[in-house]
C-alpha cells in the first residue's frame, strides 16, 4: 500500500494529468501543475518524470518548437492515468465514507 501511495504521489502522474488537458512543453507543464495542484516541480524532477514516461510509451515528444519540445499523452498514457485516477477515486470514497462513519 505504501508503494501504491508513493506511485500516486509521484511526479509522473502529475505530468500525465497535466498532458490530459492538451500538449505542453516543460515550462507549461510546471506552470499548469503549480496552478492546478499547488505542487512545484523542479526541472530535474520534471525531466526525470518525462524521460521515464517517454521510455514507457505513456507520453511522446512532438517536433520541437524552437528550443521547446511539446509532449503529448499517448493512448497508453491515457489508459494508465484513467486506471490510476479510478483507484485513487475509489480510495478517496472509501476513506471519506469510513471517516464519516467513525465515531468522533
Amino acid at each position, binding site marked *: 500500500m505504501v508503494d501504491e501511495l508513493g506511485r500516486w504521489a509521484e511526479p509522473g502522474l502529475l505530468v500525465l494529468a497535466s498532458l490530459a488537458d492538451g500538449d505542453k*512543453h*516543460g*515550462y507549461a507543464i*510546471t506552470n499548469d501543475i503549480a496552478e492546478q495542484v499547488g505542487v512545484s516541480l*523542479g*526541472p*530535474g*524532477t*520534471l*525531466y*526525470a518524470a*518525462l*524521460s521515464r514516461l517517454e521510455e514507457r510509451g505513456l507520453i511522446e515528444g512532438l517536433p*520541437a518548437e*524552437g*528550443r*521547446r*519540445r511539446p509532449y503529448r499523452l499517448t493512448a497508453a498514457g491515457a489508459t494508465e492515468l484513467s486506471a490510476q485516477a479510478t483507484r485513487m477515486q475509489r480510495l478517496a470514497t472509501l476513506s471519506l465514507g469510513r471517516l464519516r462513519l467513525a465515531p468522533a
Partner: protein
Amino acid sequence: MTGDPWLVRALLACYPASWRRRYGDEYAQLLCDLRIHRRPRLIVDSLRGALGAALNQGGPLMSNRSPMTTAVWAAGLFTVAGIGFQKLAEDFTGVAGSVYTLLIAAAAVALLALVAAAAPTAVALLRGRDTGAWRYVAVPVLGAAAWYGVLRLALAISHGHGVHSAPNVTGFVLVAVTGIAVVAATAWAAGTVLRRVPADQPTRLRPAALVVLAAGMAVTTAVALVWGLRVQAGDPTAFHGDQGILATPFVPSWIATVVLMAAATVLATIAGRRQLLATR
C-alpha cells in the same frame, strides 16, 4: 538565452552525454524559463536530477548500462589494488608464501576471465569490423610509454634521497598518479571498443566469464585479507611497523588494498548480474 548562460551550461553538463543529446536543448530552455539563477532550490533539484540520470545509466563511468563497461572498470580498479598489494607485499617474501601464491592464481583467473569475455570483440576488431576503433588500442601503449618516462623522471628526482624526503615522496606520487591515470585511460579505451565494435556473442560465454571474473576477484580479496592476518601472526612487529607503502604504517596500506579489491569485486558482481539478466 536569458538568465545565466554559464550556470545553465554547468547544470546541463552534470547530465550524462546521452541524456543531453536527447533533452539538452529543451532542458536548457526550461532552466532559462524558470530563471534558475534566482532559485537555489531549483538548482539543487537539477543536480539531483542529474545524479538520478547518471545512476539510471549506470553512472558516468559506465554509460548505456553495458555490463562489459562495468566489468572493465572493475578490472581497472582491481589492477590498481593489485599493484598496491604487490608494492605492499614486496618486503614480505617468504611470509605467508602459500597464501600469496593462491592470491596470484585467483587474480590471474579473474583477469583471464575478463580476456575471455572480451575475446569476441577482439576477434571482430581483428576482422576489421570497425577500423576506426584501432586508434583506441594505442591508448594503453602510449600510456605505458608515458608512465615509463615518468618513472625514469621519478627515479632521477628521488635518487640519493631518503624514503620520507620530499623528492622521494614527489617521485612516488608522480608514478602512482600517472599509473592510475594510465589504467583509467586504458579502461576507458577498452570500454569504448567493447561498446562500438559489433561482435558475435556466444550465448553463454560472456555471462560465465563475468561470473568467473567476480568469483576470482572475491577469492583474491579474501586471500589478501587472510595474507595480512598471516603476516600479523607470523611477524607482529612488521604488522605494527612501518612496512606499508612508502614506509608508512602497514595496517592502513593493507586495509586500503583490501577495500579497493572488495570494491572491484562488487562492481564485477554487478556486471555479471546485469549480463545474466540480459541473456535470460
